[in-house]
């Protein structure tokens, strides 16, 4: 907690320090969203039968100087039913300064590692804000101190991560929830959330290859779900992880590979590998069609991507309104009737508005598959955003 406080103080100091000279730029997003579920919840009568609505706001303030960048990004969502989905967060509250080949950052921020599309194995700095979206792309802000050195032989990053954020999980008053009520989280570390984690990463571009090697030591972002009569208790164990991500570019092709060895309550190896192939200007139009295929393997038996294939198509219209459609299918190779499918479509309406429609379908007839609990949660989600 001391470190978090220190971190916050330093950020505030940095913020006040830079508060003169140049002005703050304000921008952000306001969104209304409606979800429609095809079936009623199999787990809870309190959950909405078909309709779940939400309102979201995400303002961002930034200040840029010759040698620094200060960001404040807040986030809040109000959900019509789910108290767990009604939440707020500090996505960013950070001060970054740079000189020569070095960068130093203090505060709350988000870090992304990796290259694959169907899942992000090596990416472990930030906790997933899983009530936000089913794809796991949304993250909670993480307090950090970061030092970066960009050298001829590659880029070196070091992080100190004071404070741990528990994963957001839908409650039984909402949809896409776990089958029984959630209990308070438990931790392997006696310091619970007040741990000091650290991470290092080396990355480099050599000709047509982007490579990365990362090491993380701290609290496992992925909870072990412990079932009991009173409900489900998320248990956060300690872990260390060694990861690598490699990407090669060859003409129309991007080749991708991510792998981790993670030592937590148990020790396991997992990987995702595949390609992205882009057809530019299909059917003599300005449209691009991207083909994505990825294979995932994990030694962890209850992993979602234990032995799975993902195939996806992304159609970019390259028009004034930026229309884009993505369709993806994730098939479990061990269980023929276990798969998930998603369809995403989005476009701009004028200069400031954007619409997005996401549809998900889940299927499983195998009780032991992690996807089984979602089999009656097929839904369509429509969002309308105003950007300011």
């Amino acid at each position, binding site marked *: 907690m001391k470190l978090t406080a220190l971190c916050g103080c330093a950020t505030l100091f940095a913020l006040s320090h830079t508060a003169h000279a140049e002005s703050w*730029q304000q*921008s952000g*997003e306001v969104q209304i969203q409606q979800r429609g579920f095809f079936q009623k919840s199999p787990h809870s009568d309190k959950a909405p039968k078909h309709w779940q609505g939400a309102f979201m706001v995400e303002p961002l303030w*930034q200040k*840029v100087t010759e040698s620094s*960048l200060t960001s404040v990004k807040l986030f809040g969502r109000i959900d019509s039913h789910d108290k767990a989905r009604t939440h707020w967060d500090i996505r960013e509250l950070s001060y*970054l300064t*740079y000189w*020569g*080949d070095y*960068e130093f950052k203090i505060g709350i*921020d*988000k*870090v*992304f590692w990796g*290259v694959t599309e169907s899942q992000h194995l090596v990416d472990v700095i930030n906790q997933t804000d899983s009530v936000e979206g089913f794809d796991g*792309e949304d993250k909670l802000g993480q307090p950090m101190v970061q030092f*970066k050195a*960009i050298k001829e032989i590659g*880029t070196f990053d070091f992080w100190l991560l004071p404070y741990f954020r528990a994963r957001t999980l839908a409650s039984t008053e909402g949809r896409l929830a776990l089958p029984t009520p959630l209990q308070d989280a438990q931790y392997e570390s006696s310091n619970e959330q007040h741990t000091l984690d650290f991470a290092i990463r080396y*990355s480099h*571009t050599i000709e047509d290859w*982007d490579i990365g090697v990362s090491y993380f030591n701290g609290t496992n972002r992925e909870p072990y779900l412990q079932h009991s009569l009173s409900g489900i208790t998320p248990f956060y164990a300690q872990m260390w992880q060694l990861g690598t991500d490699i*990407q090669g*570019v*060859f*003409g*129309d*092709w*991007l080749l991708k590979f991510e792998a981790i060895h993670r030592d937590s309550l148990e020790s396991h190896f997992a990987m995702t590998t595949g390609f*992205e192939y*882009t057809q*530019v*200007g299909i059917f003599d139009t*300005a449209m*691009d069609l991207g083909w994505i295929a990825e294979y995932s393997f994990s030694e962890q038996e209850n992993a979602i991507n234990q032995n799975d294939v993902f195939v996806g198509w992304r159609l970019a219209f*390259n*028009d*004034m*309104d*930026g229309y884009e459609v993505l369709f993806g299918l994730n098939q479990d190779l061990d269980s023929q009737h276990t798969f998930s499918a998603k369809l995403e479509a989005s476009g*701009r309406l004028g*200069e*400031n508005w*954007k619409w997005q429609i996401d549809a998900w379908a889940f299927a499983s007839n195998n009780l032991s598959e992690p996807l089984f609990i979602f089999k009656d949660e097929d839904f369509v989600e429509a969002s309308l*955003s105003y*950007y*300011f």
Partner: protein
Amino acid sequence: MKIAIKATLITGLMATSLMSAFTGHADQSKGLELAKLRKQADSGWQDSQATLTMELKNAAGDTSLRKLRIKSLEVNNDGDKGLTIFDTPRDVKGTAFLNHSHAAKPDDQWLYLPALKRVKRIASRNKSGPFMGSEFAYEDLSSFELEKYTFHFIEETTLGDQGVYLIEQVPVDRYSGYTKQRVWLAKSHYQPLKVEFYDRKNALLKTLELKDYQKYLEKFWRANTLVMNNVQTQKATTLTTTKLKFKTGLEVNDFNKASLKRAR
């Protein structure tokens, strides 16, 4: 008699082909010479920072405006480096595009998506794709390098009231979206006034007009207005430079993946 006719025919054919080979060589060397003058006239600017607007117009006449900034670094003996930051449309604000042009091999390109904090590599083939939904392809905005084309001088002519050299340039890169480009170079400053782009079927696809030339640092001629017309779809894009500064002190470490992430 028959044989004699054949022989004359063959000699005639040989002569014409020899001649065309000879003139072809002359066209090529003159074309290359003019391209060298073009490159030379625009060398030594070191770095620049520009603020631009891009107006997209569809066939129905609807328009949409984008605002962007481009930082550029001149690199000797290779392609230039460029960093483009998008300010509008608002939903892509903060998106940044890093381009390392190369003389002899495909450019290296990365895109930074601020919402995901993710840097994505762009496949080299995408160079022929549209830049931000505009009529400019990524490759149209890449730096001009001699190694990227073979040049043929066509003729000396006039464009409006200006004396010009008409040159045909054929892209070397097989991932280029064009079979050839016809370039009208101003005799006065060796910079292009007009470019025609021919698609993979060798049909005219786009015409680019470069207007409002201004002399910077008493040496470098830059067009402040670029109008790209797609003659096949009737869509058009106008790229207007509203601010341009040279020798601003940018360095090579302002053009790597780390600087892409902090570009604003």
